[in-house]
């Protein structure tokens, strides 16, 4: 039996949908699980908030693509606007809008997880088979030399001249034409993303995929039959216009470390670990400006990485240090990362075709939290640690030296105030960067850790099978479970982890008509006295972080209320006076 993709925004939705397994999220974690479970004969339904944007609809234009492919229309950010949080909202998830980098979890990280967190299934000798399967899913290969564009080659030239270790990266493109807009969707589908691999397999095996559906609450999480409350969105994905219920025995949450935690918190499901231990891996762009035309917007945007400063087996944190990777975006998104507006901003953008940019990818220790207020609004709290700032300063200094060595006339560090580096000696000024909140365009593309896997409930939000503690067959199969940064790029580890966890689930369900027949799957729950207290249920009001992140303006801290109260009073006074004066004001 073949399944299908059903866009519920374009038809009258049913009141109820029933399935054996309901998967929330269609990206690397959810798509992989959907494929394996459907191929094993299970009845699978996938819920995806985005829609299926394919082919010519991928217009390579900033406005339309950030609006349609990214969560909160590209505007998701931390509570103080210090970090932009990039998260896919499209069928295929983050795999559709990432830079296509294939970087498996290093052995050092896996050993760290096994030793420090008791994640024995992630030990290299056990996890290797799943990483290899993930590489196969991705058709992983080294980026061919002809696709390394001049911008990435400048990074390589500078690093090589300075004797720094680096590499041409592996990717998951097949038939790449170097069109340059990987971050806003490949119009020729060269990426072997879940949209092009896992989901077609899942559909062929009978999975039903419902797009423009937003899961807002999981009810009866400790009972055999769960109920997922779902809101159907309009075709643009802006407004909710209908509601339905999905009933399923098994629920797999794979909506990314932000949205998975958000859903569990809104549902009052799980223990006090849910939402905590967030890592964002904040990255800082840095721009080398050359006299010659670089045209970084053509070719593969990210193909070379300087790995000299990366630690893969830090005893305390696992992945540590930093790496420097070439990158480029379309004009709109690049302009948002530049520090100043006005004539200075225009002068900077006039050099767009002479820019070669990098991202300074600095792994972080868990220091963030996903929160959902009683009103339903999402808040991503994140405090950049001093050790992160310190490594970021080192990274800026070294990246600047690399670009200068490669012939850049200057290097722009897009902080507030901006730092322009013209000589190797100037690069020392990076050591003075303060990184106060909202003074640097930090970007997070790899959110992890909000429902940490742990062998014991006291240490994490989900067990070693991915089952959320305190539930019966509600699982997380995505980066939410990673206790620390899995890799510099999370696509491969997420697919591998989802494969491993789905494989365990299948082992528990094989040879039976019903999953309820399996005692391991329905492992005894702790008694109510052992369970941590449930959170109060959040109201089911939909929460956006704020399309421009401006939602955060009023929540910069409780202390900002004084400020915004004043603004509110001004607005109120102005409007009252306007109405009294007949709208002439």
């Amino acid at each position, binding site marked *: 039996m073949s399944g299908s993709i059903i866009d519920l925004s374009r038809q009258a939705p049913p009141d109820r949908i029933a399935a054996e397994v309901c998967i929330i999220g269609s990206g690397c974690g959810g798509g992989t699980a959907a494929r394996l479970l459907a191929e094993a004969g299970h009845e699978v339904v996938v819920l995806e908030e985005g829609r299926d944007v394919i082919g010519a609809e991928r217009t390579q234009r900033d406005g339309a693509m950030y609006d349609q492919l990214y969560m909160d229309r590209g505007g998701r950010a931390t509570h103080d606007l210090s970090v932009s949080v990039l998260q896919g909202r499209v069928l295929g998830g983050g795999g559709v809008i990432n830079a296509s980098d294939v970087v498996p979890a290093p052995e050092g990280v896996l050993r760290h997880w096994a030793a420090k967190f008791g994640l024995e299934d992630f030990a290299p000798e056990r996890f290797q088979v799943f990483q290899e399967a993930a590489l196969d899913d991705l058709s992983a290969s080294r980026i061919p030399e002809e696709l390394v564009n001049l911008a990435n080659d400048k990074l390589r030239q500078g690093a090589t001249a300075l004797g720094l270790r680096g590499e041409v990266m592996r990717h998951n493109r097949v038939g790449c034409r170097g069109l340059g807009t990987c971050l806003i969707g490949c119009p020729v589908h060269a990426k072997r993303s879940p949209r092009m691999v896992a989901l077609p397999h899942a559909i062929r095996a009978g999975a039903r995929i419902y797009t423009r559906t937003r899961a807002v609450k999981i009810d009866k999480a400790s009972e055999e039959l769960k109920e997922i409350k779902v809101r159907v969105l309009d075709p643009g994905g802006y407004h909710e216009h209908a509601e339905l219920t999905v009933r399923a025995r098994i629920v797999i949450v794979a909506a990314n470390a932000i949205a998975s935690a958000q859903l569990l918190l809104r549902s009052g499901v799980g223990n006090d670990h849910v939402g905590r231990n967030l890592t964002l891996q904040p990255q800082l762009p840095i721009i080398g400006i050359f006299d010659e*035309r670089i045209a970084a917007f053509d070719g593969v945007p990210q193909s070379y990485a300087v790995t000299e400063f990366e630690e893969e087996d830090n005893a305390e944190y696992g992945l540590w240090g930093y790496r420097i990777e070439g990158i480029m975006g379309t004009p709109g998104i690049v302009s948002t990362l530049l520090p100043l507006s*006005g004539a200075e901003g225009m002068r900077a953008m006039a050099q767009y075709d002479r820019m070669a940019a990098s991202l300074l990818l600095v792994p972080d220790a868990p220091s963030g939290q996903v929160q959902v207020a009683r009103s339903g609004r999402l808040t991503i709290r994140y405090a950049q640690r001093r050790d992160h700032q310190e490594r970021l300063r080192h990274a800026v200094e070294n990246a600047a030296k690399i670009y200068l060595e490669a012939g850049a006339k200057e290097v722009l560090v897009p902080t507030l105030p901006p730092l322009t580096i013209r000589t190797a000696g100037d690069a020392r000024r990076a050591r003075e960067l303060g990184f106060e909140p909202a003074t640097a365009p930090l970007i997070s593309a790899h959110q992890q850790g909000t429902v940490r896997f742990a062998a014991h409930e006291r240490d994490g939000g989900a067990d070693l099978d991915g089952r959320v503690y305190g539930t019966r067959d509600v699982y997380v199969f995505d980066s939410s479970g990673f206790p620390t940064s899995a890799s510099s790029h999370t696509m491969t580890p997420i697919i591998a982890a989802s494969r491993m966890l789905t494989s365990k689930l299948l082992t528990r369900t094989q040879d039976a008509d019903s999953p309820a027949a399996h005692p391991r799957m329905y492992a005894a729950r702790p008694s109510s006295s052992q369970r941590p207290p449930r959170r109060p249920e959040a109201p089911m009001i939909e929460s956006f972080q704020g399309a*421009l992140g401006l939602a955060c303006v009023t929540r910069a801290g409780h202390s900002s209320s*004084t400020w915004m109260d004043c*603004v509110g009073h001004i607005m109120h006074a*102005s409007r009252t006076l306007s109405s009294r004066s007949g709208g002439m004001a």
Partner: protein
Amino acid sequence: MPSTPPEESAREGLFSFLSRRRFLKAGVVAGGAILGVGGGGLLALRGHAPSVKGLRALDAHEYRTLQSLVEAMLPKTDAVPIDPASMDLPRAFDAFLADEPKHNVEDLQKALVLIEFGPLVFEGRLTTFSRLAPAERAEHWRAWALSDNLLRRQVSIAMRKFLNLVYFDHQEVWPYIGYPGPSMMRSTAR
């Protein structure tokens, strides 16, 4: 219970304290300015805004503030000699807001009020953003990005995120920044 590293607990607390002081101080200034000028004075300061047809989320005053902001942020220069008025970015902003949740619309409207009365609130000048001369307005807006005040930086970032993205997505700008346009469009043109 999971715990936050001690270093971070302290750091967050310190920032909260600084923020509170900063906001309280600014709040006192703003409150003083409002008291000093009074409601009628605010009305007079803001002045008349020409009506604009077809707006879905903004009113005429908010639209005018955005127009002034666009002039300050994305001016016609030798490097990019495009008049941003030709793009009507405030209307694009209005269309964007119309599809946003109510609380986001309210937040953005508050930000626009803060921008309009910024010269009064932050500099104690009896004027508004839209009344400033272009050079003064550009300098005033630059100070938002470089301010010690977190809230002003946040407003600056949020406005830049939207307006820059939409402006540089316009085809007429591309020749001045050396961008030949989306690669698929180029291959079709060939």
